[in-house]
């Protein structure tokens, strides 16, 4: 049975929701599921915009068949060739062998690598700025390299103002019936999963996000719908979304606040993290959150780092090094280009306390523009009552560094 929603007259969402997948890209947990969005435009010609993951193929085909209602498919635009969107292309081609495929050269090269069989005469290779007349739909293309793959592009339908943005503006979380941004409480129910998607999937490519935002800016007043490949379609309040993207792409924090992450084997380091959190709250420092890195998937930690201005890393020493889960978090922050943050360090060890020096060195040498506060709390196994003052000093230093 079909499940279809109309975006605007002659444009339909024909994607699918997935709650069965536990790990997106086989790495990021998605407890609230994910949607694979596919769209079809009907007019003098019929145009499909991207397909869906293999798992959602059957639903999409039923949707497609229903919307076409016996018509043939004329064009398929592939903006992004990652398998969670392009995997169903071959099945679509079996059903609709006359469809011509619109993509860029890099995209077709990737298609070849992934093993798609597309007849040469069916390929329409576009360059940036080309305009294709598809009946009463006029399509133009902007290339969006490294958001987050090199071939990714954006298609703009000049006739109805729909901007197909591939993974840009995408989000985790299944739609579950909703389609538009104004059908949900975005701040409450969607922002966190949107941030977690963006920062973990595209976080590294801030410069490239900035580039496409700049490129698309002149089009913006003609855009009526932002149609990403995951998550909600935006039809108003674009500035809300763009402001968030501006911060994320420039690695600027959304809020002044402190994220305390601890790696603790027996609760001793955890105690210090909790003591600091209490002290910070005592001092009136806003937005304090605490995470156990061993029990929190790193994608949540990354999302929180992008949100907050300050990060405290509290780690025990393990095999003369940083506790492995904490080390992994550091590596992930480096890979995703985290910068412009203020860090503080709490270290613990029972015979050779090394974690603080190593974390400090990592932040200084491996990451970009990270300020490390001077006061470091060093714990020999367990916090002593007399160290209350050290915790307080660290809290004060954090508070002072938040001024201005």
């Amino acid at each position: 049975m079909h499940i279809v929603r109309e975006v605007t007259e002659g444009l339909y969402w024909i994607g699918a929701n997935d709650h069965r997948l536990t790990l997106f890209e086989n790495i990021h947990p998605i407890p609230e599921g994910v949607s694979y969005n596919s769209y079809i435009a009907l007019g003098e010609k019929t145009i499909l915009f991207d397909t869906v993951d293999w798992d959602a193929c059957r639903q999409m085909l039923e949707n497609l068949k229903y919307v076409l209602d016996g018509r043939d498919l004329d064009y398929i635009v592939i903006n992004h060739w990652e398998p969670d969107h392009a995997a169903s292309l071959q099945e679509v081609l079996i059903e609709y062998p006359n469809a011509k495929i619109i993509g860029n050269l890099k995209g077709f090269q990737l298609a070849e690598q992934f093993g798609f069989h597309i007849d040469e005469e069916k390929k329409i290779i576009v360059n940036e700025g080309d305009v294709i007349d598809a009946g009463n739909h006029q399509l133009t293309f902007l290339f969006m390299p490294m958001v987050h793959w090199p071939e990714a592009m954006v298609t703009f339908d000049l006739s109805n103002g729909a901007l197909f943005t591939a993974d840009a503006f995408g989000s985790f979380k299944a739609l579950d019936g909703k389609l538009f941004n104004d059908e949900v409480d975005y701040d409450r129910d969607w922002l966190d999963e949107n941030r977690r998607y963006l920062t973990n999937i595209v976080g590294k490519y801030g410069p490239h996000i900035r580039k496409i935002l700049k490129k698309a800016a002149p089009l913006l007043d003609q855009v009526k719908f932002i149609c990403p490949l995951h998550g909600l379609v935006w039809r108003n309040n674009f500035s809300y979304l763009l402001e968030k993207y501006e911060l994320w792409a420039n690695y600027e924090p959304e809020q002044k606040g402190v994220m305390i992450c601890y790696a603790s084997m027996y609760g001793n380091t955890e105690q210090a993290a909790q003591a600091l959190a209490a002290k910070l709250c005592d001092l009136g420092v806003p937005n304090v959150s605490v995470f156990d890195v061993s029990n929190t998937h790193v994608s949540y930690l990354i999302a929180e780092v992008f949100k907050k201005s300050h990060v405290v890393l509290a780690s025990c020493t393990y095999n003369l090094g940083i506790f492995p889960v904490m080390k992994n978090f550091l590596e992930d922050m480096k890979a995703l280009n985290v910068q412009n943050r203020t860090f503080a360090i709490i270290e613990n060890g029972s015979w050779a306390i090394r974690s603080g020096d190593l974390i400090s060195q990592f932040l200084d040498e491996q990451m970009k523009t990270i300020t490390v506060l001077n006061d470091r709390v060093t714990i020999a196994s367990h916090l002593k009552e007399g160290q209350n003052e050290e915790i307080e000093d660290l809290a004060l230093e954090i508070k002072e560094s938040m001024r201005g």
Partner: protein
Amino acid sequence: MFKLSQEHEDLRMQIREFAESEVKPYAFTWDRENHFPREVIEKMAKNGWLGLPYPKEYGGMGKDILSYSIAVEELSRVDGGTGVILSAHVSLGSWPIYAFGTEEQKQKYLVPLAKGEKIGAFGLTEPNAGSDAGGTETTAVLEGDHYILNGEKIFITNGGEADTYVIFAVTTLGIGTRGISAFIVEKGWEGFTIGDHYDKLGIRSSATAQLLFNDVKVPKENLLGKEGEGFKIAMATLDGGRIGIASQALGIAQGAYESAKNYALDRIQFGKPVAFQQGLSFKIADMATQIRAARMLVYSAAELKENHENYGMEAAMAKQFASDTAVKVTEEAIQCYGGNGYLKGMDVERMYRDAKITQIYEGTNEIMRVVISGHILGKPPKQEKKASPLANPQKAITGIRKKMIFKNGSAQEMVDSLVENLKADGHDFTVGIDIDTPITKAARVVSAGKGIGPKENMKLIEELARQAGAAIGSSRPVAETLQYVPMDRYVGMSGQKFNGNLYIACGISGAVQHLKGITNAGTIVAINTNPNAPIFKNCDYGIVGDVNEILPLLAQKLNTGKKKPAGEMKKIRRPIEKKEKPSYDVMVCDGCGYEYDPMIGDPANGIAPGTLFENLPDDWVCPHCSEPKAHFEKS
């Protein structure tokens, strides 16, 4: 070939006679009193020895390098200090002008140097540029007809006594040794002052001082060689200088050996001169052997230089071996003397102290081995390393500091701004500590440097200390040389370490050893007339001004009546090092996200670290996905 000519032997006898009569009798006093024997140098000048190896047309004696080597050796045989005065004058102060100077420069500067009317010196070493001249921080900026020279040189032999200085300074920043140039600078030029005279272990009859340059105008025509040739000139000069130092070491060893031998022949134990005890006879045999070997090395290097053959390696070998010999022989000489050799007044005691420096200066013996092995092995295979040309400037010795310097406005305004900032940082001047609190336990210290002037000005320091609720401290020269305060009051690496909250440095220029004593200070305040004094690069707040004017105003401003006793010290927070974005662009590839970091370069494709993205060749492509240079984004 292995025997000196009669002419050389005659010269040796002439100088030995002079040394025995004019130097030896006074060497003990000069050593004790740190006395520079100007009168003796003038006599040597009359004999023409200050220009021994230079052509007669330039006022020299027209003798060879070997003659010069013998002269240094013979002087050092009785006094190592006098030997190095000649060596630094001839090899370091005069030679670069002789070898690289224009005809005008030679007429103006070399002639009076060679005639001995003027004394020469050479200024390369700096606090952060010892063996590694690439760390040179003295700068010379061309402004019209003059270079403006700013910076500091340390450990300069003949410093203060010399009239003509060859000074090395950076003319192009950021390109390491290739940016260094040499200049001829005259004593007495405005802004050129002599700083600390060092209180040395040995060679105490020679003068060694710090040179300070504060906006010194050096005429363009005093550039020696071309811009950027400074490092080359310095290295060539030091190659030759090492023959001088090797000769000095040889002379010291010779003197100690002779003294020990004579004593051992005199001293009778167990019924015969101790020289005939096998223990000592073997020592004497070893000393003589080592000295002969050293002499062969030294003379052969001198001969190579005289014949214009390559001599860099041989000079380094001679310097290394002769100086090691000097240290060994002087030590054994004291052993031959027994307890008597351990006493002041014994020449071997002084020689033992004099010898040590020959292993250190004009290239340490470790650097000698670098030079020698470099000659033998060539350059090591290329190593990948993080680039230096773009590296962040050196951090201040005292760590991260605010470096807020007040230099405009009235004295009162500067003092007001300073006190306002100190209070904002949490310094409470209603409480104070006793003026006699030990430095290591003091929460605050007001410290005097040589810039404080005459002893009566210490009253200003005392008054400020009282009003600031601080103890009194000083720089080393103020305690040791001027003796204004007891020795336990001086702050520094070799003195007391300050761990408190507030350090007010008055008239302290900021020698490295002093700065190392205040690295733990919460806040450092500097008051000094010289805006280029290193203390200003190492302080949180600074006032450029005269202590006579500033200190009373500051004391008045801090006067809160009677100070309450300070409780346990609450440490004031040190400033945080704010990480800034680098000044260069890191570029990201559109095809794969690879980042080109100029600090790393792309060594696999022959791009050296330090290459900016814009300087990459046009046909350079992304090493990971072959995207062309045009498809890169600013990260």
